[in-house]
């Protein structure tokens, strides 16, 4: 019971770092980016290749994965995404599904279709026992790491100049623009940061969630649940939604394995029906 909760929290924390960038970009530009998972996958593969072929230590892979995907995100944003902000949601959906498919096929081409087996670094291998209970060292690391990251993000958002500008832009873009805030620039930076975080989480998650070419599609629904249930107006919303989803996913698979994802999907639909703006979201002002 406690172990399940622990596993769920670890998964939830990871989901939060995976999805937080998507939540902010959606809130900021009302842009539906279904390709977000591709960045996470890219981060995971970067770490795998570096570790396996170049012997780069795991802890160095994390920042590299972050930087690589952040740069990739920045480039894609400036060259392609920027053309789609004023287009319809249908076009955004088509475009980002297209990118997702391309990323999946590319991953398949270079890395093969089978899931990558990644071991946790030796210093984090094995379990810690507390009483009768065993906790994976690596998952403890993931929880602590993500918690620190979440705390850092929240602080950055509330305490820094960039954060306050970002919040202003999410709240009311036109007013923000009137105050001399360069929304386009803010968005480009947020997009890069969000992609980088996804890449980082992809690398971080590779020892505990399976990394394969269908990753972006498989986790797309998870990300979308996080942002739609968590709402896009805060980051505490997605954070709570991630934890909830992580715990529900682990518990659901453990206690009622036969129904699989059924519970999660049903819960999501139910939440969205009763609170279309998300469980923790404020209704968006017109």
């Amino acid at each position: 019971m406690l172990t399940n909760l622990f596993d769920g929290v670890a998964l939830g924390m990871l989901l939060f770092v995976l999805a937080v960038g998507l939540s902010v970009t959606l809130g900021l530009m009302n842009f539906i980016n279904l390709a977000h998972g591709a960045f996470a996958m890219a981060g995971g593969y970067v770490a795998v290749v570096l570790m396996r072929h170049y012997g780069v230590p795991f802890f160095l892979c994390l920042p590299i994965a972050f930087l690589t995907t952040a740069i990739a995100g920045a480039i894609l944003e400036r060259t392609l995404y920027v053309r789609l902000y004023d287009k319809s949601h249908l076009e955004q959906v088509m475009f980002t599904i297209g990118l997702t498919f391309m990323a999946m096929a590319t991953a398949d081409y270079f890395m093969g279709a089978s899931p990558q087996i990644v071991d946790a670094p030796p210093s984090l291998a094995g379990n810690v026992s507390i009483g009768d209970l065993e906790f994976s060292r690596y998952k403890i690391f993931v929880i602590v790491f993500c918690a620190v990251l979440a705390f850092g993000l929240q602080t950055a958002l509330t305490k820094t100049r960039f954060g306050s500008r970002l919040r202003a832009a999410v709240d009311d873009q036109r007013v923000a623009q009137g105050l001399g805030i360069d929304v386009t620039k803010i968005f480009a930076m947020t997009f890069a940061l969000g992609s980088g975080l996804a890449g980082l989480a992809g690398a971080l998650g590779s020892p505990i969630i399976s990394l394969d070419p269908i990753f972006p599609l498989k986790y797309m629904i998870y990300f979308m649940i996080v942002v739609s249930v968590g709402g896009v107006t805060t980051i505490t919303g997605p954070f709570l939604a991630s934890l909830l989803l992580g715990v529900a996913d682990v518990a659901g698979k453990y206690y009622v394995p036969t129904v699989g994802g059924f519970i999660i999907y049903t819960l999501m639909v139910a939440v969205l029906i009763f609170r279309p703006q998300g469980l923790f979201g404020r209704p968006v002002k017109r």
Partner: protein
Amino acid sequence: MSDTPLQADRDKAFAFLKAQARWRWPEIALWAFAFASILLMPSRALLINEIAILALFALSLDLILGYAGIVSLGHGAFFGVGAYTAGLLAKAGAGAAPLSDPTLGLLAAGATAAMIGYATSFLVLRGNDLTKLMVTLGIALIFQELANKFSDITGGADGLQGVTPAKVLGLFDFDIYGKTAAFYSVTVLFLLFCAARVIVHSPFGISLRAIKGNALRARAIGVPVDARLRAIYTLAAAYAGVAGALLAQTTAQVSLDVLEFHRSADTLLIVVLGGVGTLYGAVVGAAAFKMMYDFISSYTQQYWQFWLGLILVVLVLFVRGGIMGLIARLTGQEERA
């Protein structure tokens, strides 16, 4: 004001409205070709059958996407429901009428999908585009999980075996070359297309376009927006159900594949490729999609997905309005987005 110019304007307006729904010769040529192609290229009958089914499914999506502005990522649910309904019915009848009668199968599949469409329309029509996407996707995933779970009914991953529909109208047996299948599917597509064509040019159809254009104003005119959207969503679900039934009957099997996400995604691509909100876009898009698929996978079966993605990206960035939009621009007609 004298009476004559007014009467002239009335006549002009009348003629203008009448001309909107008139059959034009390229349309007639297209349908003539569709039927003739089965006779001219009997070896391609199976391909034609597939295109017709894809086209019908895409048509059903265009009805909600192009005419009512509902973005759905889970339209495949209705396709799957229709396929299983027809498949189970044909199996239950063991190849003999009345239960295995294909027409009955189509009607039952359409009705079942319509019922589920109506029930879920209350859920789908809430919230913004993102919420709609998630709810439609969620519903589709729920159906996929259900089909997986109740594998004793659906046959699970192995699929439903022994789907043997009876003769079409009690006259035409399904042959292994797919000739009957192709005629059957193209005919059903044609009939449902004609019905859709009537509907989009009707007062009901124009009210949908009005809702898509400006729901606030439509309400202020007195249009019961939600009821209209529920109606078209239900109809589109029925169309998708019939398309699924055609697939089940003409391929004599149903597998979990009918509920896969890629079906919904492919269909979105077909509609966008052909041109959203044009009806013909669905037909032209389906043919183009299928031929492209065959062409590319003759070189690279495994990485088809890459090219599919590239096509999507290029379409969105450079080819606004899809094939129909391109045709309209080439022939100098004003685009009606």
